[in-house]
């Protein structure tokens, strides 16, 4: 009788395990190679950091990411395969990299630059699903949504719409509101002076004369590290000392890596803008 009972319990347990596990047990990738700095940030933020084996040479955040000399810009398929990854996340596909990795039977996930916050959230969700961290991904997206909404609410919105100039490089390339960064600026109700000149790429080169005559209220500098720009260099440019943003010191410095990625640190970008708008509202208009 005891034997029959044990058999029954064992069968019941096996059935329960089978039902709970669903179909054959899913194995999530444990040797992930990320060649996209944004994907690196996403992976660590959703809790999949332990599954990341190697990241490219530009992935400098978070600090504990296993940085290697792999290049996401000019990737070497052999070098990547040498790590024996089971998943490679890339940003774009140069030199038929995807085809090469497929030949080596390695799974590739392509996550191109996001054009909107919705895109960015979708990519985080995708990474969560692929690495088995769906709850983590969901939580991250919720956190980002909440924080950005709170920052937008906290930033003052004056009666007359403020204009903004988002500088991508010191030869006056700008990010219009069609870009990821431009969309975040748009959330704050700012009018982007680059929109008039958009040629579809989202990054037109503006004429300096136009910038001076548009007289933006806020300048966002995202060319700090690459090109040595700062509020001081902007004020020193010939003719710029009369610009509204320069006169009131409303020049926001955003680190190049934050401005060019679409990961969790977009919250930091929003925070910098909100803080600048709060400071600006406390000063009377010149």
């Amino acid at each position, binding site marked *: 009788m005891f034997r029959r009972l044990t058999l029954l319990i064992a069968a019941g347990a096996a059935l329960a395990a089978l039902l709970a596990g669903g179909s054959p047990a899913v194995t999530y990738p444990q040797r992930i190679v990320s060649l996209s700095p944004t994907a690196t940030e996403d992976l660590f933020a959703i809790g999949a950091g332990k599954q990341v084996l190697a990241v490219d040479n530009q992935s400098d955040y978070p600090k504990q990411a296993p940085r290697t000399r792999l290049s996401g810009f000019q990737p070497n398929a052999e070098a990547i395969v040498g790590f024996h990854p089971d998943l490679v996340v890339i940003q774009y596909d140069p030199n038929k990299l995807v085809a090469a990795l497929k030949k080596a039977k390695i799974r590739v996930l392509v996550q191109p630059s996001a054009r909107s916050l919705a895109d960015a959230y979708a990519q985080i969700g995708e990474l969560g699903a692929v690495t088995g961290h769906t709850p983590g991904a969901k939580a991250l997206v919720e956190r980002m949504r909440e924080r950005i909404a709170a920052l937008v609410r906290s930033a003052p919105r004056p009666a007359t719409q403020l204009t903004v100039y988002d500088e991508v490089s010191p030869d006056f390339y700008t990010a219009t509101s069609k870009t990821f960064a431009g969309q975040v600026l748009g959330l704050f109700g700012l009018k982007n002076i680059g929109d008039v000149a958009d040629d579809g790429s989202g990054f*037109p*080169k503006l*004429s300096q004369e136009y910038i001076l005559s548009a007289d933006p209220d806020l300048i966002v500098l995202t060319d700090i590290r690459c090109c040595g720009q700062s509020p001081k260099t902007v004020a020193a440019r010939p003719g710029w000392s009369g610009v509204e943003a320069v006169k009131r010191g409303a020049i926001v410095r955003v680190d190049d890596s934050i401005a060019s990625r679409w990961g969790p640190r977009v919250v930091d970008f929003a925070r910098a803008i909100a803080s600048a708008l709060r400071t600006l509202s406390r000063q009377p208009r010149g």
Partner: protein
Amino acid sequence: MSPAAAPERRASNTVLLALRARLPGAAVRSPGASRRRSGLWFAAAGLFLLAAVVSGTFVGPVGLGVGAILRDVASHVPFLGVRSHLTPPESAILWQLRAPRVVLACLVGAMLSSAGATYQGVFRNPLADPYLLGVAAGAGFGATLAIVYGGGTALGSDLLALAAFAGGAVAVALTYAIGRSAGAGRSAAAFVLAGVTVTSFFTALQTFVQQQHAQSLQAVYSWILGQLDTGGWHDVLVLLPYAAVSAVVLLLHRRLLDVLSLGDDEAASLGVSVGRVRLVLVVAATLGTAAAVAVSGLIGFLGVIVPHTVRLLAGGSYRLVLPLSILVGAGFLVFADLIARTVLSPQELPIGVVTAFFGAPFFAIVLRTSRLT
């Protein structure tokens, strides 16, 4: 005149007459008539430059109004009692952006065109441009090093200009050293080949450094495409002494260019010290080119388009071609810059794109004409 120069002057006068007889379709004219004709060409070139400067000042992405601009200019003249109606931003646009840009375009255009004309004469190669001896590649390499290792050097900064100038000068010195040591004869062709070698070498170095530091690509590419708008009056003042020295030296030697264009042996037999003259001309032209490249990046095609256009219109003698190239080159770059900033306004095209746009069909035209000296 020094004893050394006297035979050169005599030689060049004889040679000029002989040259004019040689050129297809040209009859030997009396000195009076040819002087009148050259006077006409100078007047035309001067008018062209004036028209360019005026349009460059009055026209731009921001419409200031001709009357308002004239009033503002008059308000700077003392004792006239005219007050300007421009707002401070508009005044800043006119005097801090547009005016220095037009002047810079004049200087850069003049230097690149005269350097191109000089190289075409010195190396007897109709397609020689100011970058023939490796200035472009050397300056590009210097600029890349400054951008990558200069701790985030801003575009338009002095360090960048210095590095570009130094790179260009080193490249040309290297070309000259290789050319001089190349076998017997030290011919013009040897220098051209040395220039190709040095250009390839520095281009390869530049590409290597850029690839190692991919984040510098945007900044370097922007510099390579050329820019006339980041410097303001500062760049104009930096460039002015180099432009003056280069222009004066080249203009003083323009008759000798005619002699050199006959050939090394012929020139030597007329009493011209070929090696010395070539060195002086190359140094002067390179000085001007390196300085222009240092402040405004690599603006191409100018050094070929302008001298050839001038030759097509006014004949092949460097006595005319050199000063006319200076005037027409200045005007041409001002017009090109005007197009760059108005055709897609308020977007701006890099100046290198506009000159290339003119340059490509122009090469086709040059190939079909017969007067290529």
